[in-house]
Structure formats: structure tokens, C-alpha cells
């Protein structure tokens, strides 16, 4: 079956440009502001939206995403709240793909079957669950695929050629290449190595490959867009949220605007790269 993610990548491929995938944390800094940010993302240039499901113990995330999750939890965000957020976004946007990203425990506690029903009906298209490698595919990956959701897997610099087929089996939508061995928001990757890695992944799959971790500027985004089907930007966006808050950690008039301005800027980097049309 074709999902919004498949449709979006096909369309952008035909236009000859890479996708901008934006990550923001659900409920950060509060549910209403978070919804306003997400609603503003497509017009600012986001082609796909990843929404973080906050978790107390995000073991692969750096300080920026950790802090965003804790802000959201402090503001009362729950998984049910995140699903509601997507329903509200989807009421006004039928085409932008939405991917939930996070860790397994909140989903496990919500109940896998119930979660998949609610996620599908909320208009969610795909899932990225950081702590579910292919070795644990029976937990959520296979049920999610059966429910018609994409299950997007991370491939990393430590995923060698022997292991790639295992990672790619049961992966759908796109492959998320983590450009560095490290936590989110860490150092800027070596773009030359990234292009080589993307080519290596593409020799194993026809799925689009999006690259993330360490993308901070329009120039970074352009460098990645030249060699990949998509550019993921996250930590720098949640940092923009943080910098816009007042002394009490509350949203200000600048919050939505500063994220939008940053997305527009990074989108210009992505759009500056013309690729062969597919």
C-alpha cells in the first residue's frame, strides 16, 4: 500500500529536489504552542514532519532533545496528548506526512494494538522507535506494518554491509541514515563520508534515504541534500524553541516565529540543490 510518505518522496523525486524533514517535540513548550508550530511547518518548507514522543530516558538523544522532552513532560504531555495533536493537525492538512519518533516504553505501556489503531485513525503515517532494532521486530515493527503504517529504521555508521539487509528488511517509507555515531545534536558530520554511506545504503534498497544528526544550517542542509533524498533537522529546531522562551520557560510571541524562520532558512538550503528528476 502507498502511504503519504511514499507519495511525498515520489513527488519530490519527480520535481528533482530533496525533502526537508523537520523534527519537533510534541507538547514543547506547551500543547497549544506545539500545535501552532506544527501547523506552521509545511508553509515554512517542511516536506515531512517528525514529532517526538517525549520520554524521561532518551538514551540516544543529546542535551537539546532531552531538554525538549522534559519541557513537554513538565507541561503535561502524554502519548494520548500527542495523538490528539496529530488529529488536530490532520484536520487542516491531509497531505503532509507525519512520523512519530521516540522510544518504545510509552507505546508498550499504552498498548501496542490500541496505539496502532489510534495512531492510524489520527492520521499518522510512520513510526521511528529508536530502541527497537530489527532483533525486536515482533514487538511493534511487524504489527505496525500490518496496520498500514511505515516503520522507518535508522541505519548508522556501525551498520555494515553484512548487517544492512537485516536492517532494511521490514523497513518502509524511507531509511533514516544517522550521519555520525553519536547522540542527536552532536558534531557536524563529514559530508563526504555521508554521500559515500548513502550510496552504500542505496546499493541495498530502492527506498529513499534521509540523513540526519548534526544538521544545523542551510549550508549543512544543502551539503546533505546533494547526496541524499532527504535532510532531517531536529536539535537545532528544539533549541530555537528553547531560546524563544521567557525566564519562566513559557512560550513567547517569538516562539512559533523563530522556529518558522529557521525552517525557512534551512529549506532554502535544501531547495538550492537541483537533482536529476526521477
Amino acid at each position, binding site marked *: 500500500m502507498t502511504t503519504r510518505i511514499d507519495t511525498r518522496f515520489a513527488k519530490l523525486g519527480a520535481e528533482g529536489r530533496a525533502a526537508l524533514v523537520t523534527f519537533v517535540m510534541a507538547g514543547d513548550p506547551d500543547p497549544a504552542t506545539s500545535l501552532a508550530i506544527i501547523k506552521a511547518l509545511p508553509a515554512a518548507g517542511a516536506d515531512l514532519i517528525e514529532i517526538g514522543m517525549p*520520554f524521561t530516558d532518551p*538514551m540516544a538523544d*543529546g542535551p537539546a532533545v532531552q531538554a525538549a522532552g522534559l519541557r513537554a513532560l513538565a507541561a503535561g504531555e502524554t502519548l494520548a496528548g500527542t495523538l490528539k495533536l496529530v488529529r488536530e493537525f490532520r484536520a487542516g492538512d491531509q497531505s503532509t506526512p507525519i512520523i512519530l519518533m521516540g522510544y518504545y516504553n510509552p507505546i508498550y*505501556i499504552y498498548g501496542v494494538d490500541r496505539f496502532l489503531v489510534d495512531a492510524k485513525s489520527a492520521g499518522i503515517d510512520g513510526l521511528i522507535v529508536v530502541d527497537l532494532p530489527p532483533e525486536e521486530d515482533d514487538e511493534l515493527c511487524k504489527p505496525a506494518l500490518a496496520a498500514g503504517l511505515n516503520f522507518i529504521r535508522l541505519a548508522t555508521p556501525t551498520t555494515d554491509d553484512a548487517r544492512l539487509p537485516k536492517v532494511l528488511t521490514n523497513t518502509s517509507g524511507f531509511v533514516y541514515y544517522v550521519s555520525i555515531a553519536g547522540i542527536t545534536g552532536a558534531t557536524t558530520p563529514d559530508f563526504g563520508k555521508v554521500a559515500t554511506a548513502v550510496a552504500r545504503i542505496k546499493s541495498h534498497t530502492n527506498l529513499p534515504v534521509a540523513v540526519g544528526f548534526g544538521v544545523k544550517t542551510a549550508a549543512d542542509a544543502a551539503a546533505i541534500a546533494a547526496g541524499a533524498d532527504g535532510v532531517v533537522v531536529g536539535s537545532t529546531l528544539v533549541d530555537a524553541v528553547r531560546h524563544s522562551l521567557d525566564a519562566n520557560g513559557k512560550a513567547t510571541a517569538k516562539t512559533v516565529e523563530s522556529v518558522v524562520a529557521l525552517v525557512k532558512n534551512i529549506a532554502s538550503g535544501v531547495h538550492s540543490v537541483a537533482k536529476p528528476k526521477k
Partner: protein
Amino acid sequence: MTLQQTLNSFRTGPDETGHFGQFGGRFVAETLMPLVLSLEKAYAEAKADPHYQGEMKSYLTHYVGRPSPLYFAERLTEHAGGAKIYLKRDELNHTGAHKINNVLGQILLAMRMGKTRIIAETGAGQHGVATATVCARFGLKCIVYMGAVDVERQKPNVFRMKMLGAELIPVTSGSKTLKDAMNEALRDWVTNVADTFYCIGTSAGPHPYPMMVRDFQSVIGTEARAQMIEREGRLPDSIIACIGGGSNAIGLFHPFLDDPSVEIYGVEAAGHGVASGLHAASLTGGRPGVLHGNRTYLLMDPDGQIAEAHSISAGLDYPGIGPEHSWLHDMGRVKYISATDQEALDAFQLLSKLEGIIPALEPAHAIARAVEIAATKPKDHLMIVNLCGRGDKDIFSVAEHLGGME
């Protein structure tokens, strides 16, 4: 769930995917998955290698000081007025706790694997000290992550780690205790994949850690079993140990799991009392979830967010427990009970005064319940309590609770 009649042995786990029943597994980021797989392979090879086993045995004997004595606690026995209480004296090991049994095994393995940088998390600091010690012995770089709260309440161990040449990194994220130290260690490992070995201190984490740590700690139960047979001509009737992550407990328990006559008790930290919500008793007060690479019983809120554990003992202050304990709990083979901060403090003083042994606050939890259970047993009942650590590190925080040393 009740004890399965069809189960031939409680000692065969985990299965090849690292599961003890529904517990365990490998819930880690893809970056770490190849590392976890290579560790599993390297450990299987080492385990079958007589040279590695010989090295282990030699260092355990001459460096750690094994076997640790099985000591008949005569005055504690008189005080309890029932069962004969023996203490397995793992607090006499080099570095003062059972932790070094495991560290030695992991560091020898790390060197076989060509790793030069060792990272560890620590709660009470005992695992950190053991890791720093063995790294000093073999000239390896050692980085220890410790919650900022624990750095404050375990100052003697902080100083020891620094003396031993380890780099100590206080962790200020989350609740600033053991679980956050483990998060930070995992983040370090994700970042430094080529040269780094993560030396986990308890029988938790992704497979193969729970199995590997259990194997290394099983020396406790293997010795205790032989020592009791030598002393009394038969097996003990009950064995008891404290549980945070549960490495000292699984080490004592595992060699006895298939002896149906042996009652087995694990004592969790009840903090201010399980009913208060301020405790670290994952089995008594938690439910199954996924954290730090494994499915196990966890303390969490209704949305699956991990709760902060509370215990006077930094070593038990963890919202989870090793997956094999979760399985043994569900199977009914081990009875899991708990002791409060106050009960541990009382037992800390009791053992000091009656036996001249200052226990760590962690095994003081086991002592508290052991005395109570012993009182209900006949005089010929043989009990082993795992005295997994000594209390030197705790004297300042205990003094604070008791209102001074006067």
C-alpha cells in the same frame, strides 16, 4: 503466575535472543546493536577458552581474595532466636564489595576484544571503584558516570575513584542518580563505538549483559554452596540477598535455583515504604516495561514515563531490576520482599554491634529481613545472607541520619 510444573530447570536462560520468558531482550539503538552482537560473540568464545577461565580464576584468587569466607554469625543468630545465620562475606573482597567479580570478567574480556577505553555507570560508587581499580591494574583509561546526587552522598568512593586514576563525570540530567548515569554511559558508548567497552555494573541492560554479569557473579553462590556442604554437610534451607539491579542476588541465587528445598528471598529497597510511593521496589511496586536495553519490571507513571526511585542506599536507588529476577518473580521461584530505609539503618547498627561487621546499606536491607525470617524458623534451619558490601562508604550518610556520631 505459578511455578510451571513442566519446567525442568530454572538455570537454562536466557534463550538465544536474550530472553528470560518475556523479559530481557536487546532494546538498543541501531548504533549499539552491532557492538552488542560482537560482545555476545566475544563472550561466548572467552567462556569456552580455558586460558580466559584460568586468568579469571588466578586474579579472583590472588587479586580479589576469593573464596570469600562463609561465616557463622553466632550473635546475630542468638539475637534472631531461630535459624542459624551464615554470612557470605563478599564485603571482604578487594574494593569491599561483590562488584569486582564482574568487573574483572568484563575487563579481561574488553582486553581480549582490543578495547582500550572503559566506561561504567555507578550508583553507590562500588562498581565505579571496582572498575577504576581493575583499569588501574591493567593500565586502561577509565571513565565513570555517577549521578550528581550520588556524588554528594558517596564522597569516600568519589575520592577513591579519583585516586585510582579514573575520570569521574557527575551526571546532572534527570533525577541525577543511577538511571541517569546509565543513560549518560549509553550516550558515551553510542558516541565512542570503536575503542570503548561499556562495563555494566549490574545484571541488567541488553543481552548479553544480564547473562554475562550473572555468570561472573555466580562465583558467590557456587562457593557458598560448597562451603555450606563442607560446614554443615548439607544445602542451606534459605538464602537471602538485597536487590537493586540484582547482581549480587543473582550471583548467590543462580547455583541454587534447581534445589527445590532451598527457599530464596530477594529484598528490594522500600525507601519510605512501598505505600508511600517513595521507594525502589520495582517488583513489589512496578510493572513490566522497557528501559536500558531490556524488558523488566520498572517503576513508572501511568504513561510509561520512568519514575524516580527512592532509597537511602545509592546502590539500590534504581527504578528497574535485572530481567532474570523479573522472570524468577513471575515464575514464583524466588520470593521478593522489601525493607525500608529505617529497617536498613537499624540492621546496619545491629550487625555492627553484634558481629563487629559494618555492612553497606545495601546488604543491611537483606540483614533486616533475614533476622525477621530467621526468627520464624527452627534452630536447625540453615540460612545464608549475602553480605555483598562493607559499610565504610556509608558511615557519613548514616551518621547524618542518626544525628551525629556521639
